[in-house]
């Protein structure tokens, strides 16, 4: 009975700690130079899409016997029902918002455009401006066996002077066992790759435009 009481208390206490599933990556940086300079204001528009997560594996301890295992399984099930995000790894809106503000900051710091404005209101965009739409078509997190590898499937379109330039990109973090990356590192890895690809896309657009 003491063991079961301890097990219940321990489970409750553990539920108060912040799990890895709740960690959001830090702002991104881009250390290379960007040799693109457009004397126009750019509006950055974010479109979230499908979010596919990966659930934390269940861990049932049989040290307290079958009764203890049943109790801990029941508590685990109820906690997963009440707090699904604590048990699911996703690259969701929080991560995407960090990505978008980082992308805006990188473009501003490198003077890629005269000004870069994050917007959710397309009516603000004038005909002389550049509109960059970043559509996170699908974000996926792999299982524990793949180190919660993140795959980002993103479309970027650049609209300017009544023409549209569209490209699709897939960025995938390192899911190998020996990468020793935690979930926050996986987020940063996938996001940095995506950032490089989007900047590459802007360079391609500039070359095509001129």
């Amino acid at each position, binding site marked *: 009975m003491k063991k079961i009481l301890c097990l219940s208390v321990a489970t409750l206490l553990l539920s108060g700690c912040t799990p890895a599933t709740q960690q959001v990556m830090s702002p991104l940086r881009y250390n290379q130079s960007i040799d693109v300079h457009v004397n126009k204001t750019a509006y950055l528009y974010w479109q979230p899409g499908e979010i596919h997560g990966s659930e934390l594996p269940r861990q049932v301890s049989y040290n307290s016997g079958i009764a203890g295992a049943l109790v801990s399984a029941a508590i685990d099930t109820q906690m997963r029902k*009440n707090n699904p995000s604590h048990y699911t790894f996703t690259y969701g809106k929080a991560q995407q918002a960090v990505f978008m503000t980082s992308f805006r900051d990188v473009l501003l710091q490198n003077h890629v455009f005269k000004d870069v404005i994050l917007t959710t209101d397309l009516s603000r965009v004038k005909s002389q401006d550049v509109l960059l739409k970043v559509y996170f078509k699908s974000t996926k997190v792999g299982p524990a066996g793949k180190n919660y590898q993140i795959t980002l499937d993103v479309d970027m379109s650049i609209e300017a002077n009544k023409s549209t330039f569209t490209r699709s990109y897939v960025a995938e973090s390192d899911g190998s066992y020996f990468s020793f990356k935690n979930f926050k590192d996986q987020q940063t890895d996938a996001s940095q790759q995506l950032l490089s690809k989007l900047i590459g896309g802007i360079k391609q657009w500039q070359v095509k435009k001129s």
Partner: protein
Amino acid sequence: MSVLAISATAILLTACSPERQYRGVSEPKWQQLSAEQKQLIVDQAYQSEFIQPKTTS
């Protein structure tokens, strides 16, 4: 009987603590975001609800 009572209490306690969500973002993640990032999520959610309102059957 006491085992059942302890189990029921534990389950009840956990059932009384559902997570808070802010426009689809859990509270621990929300706390890590800057004010601007939070505003972006709120504005995006508003725009998507305004442009594509949910239909109820």
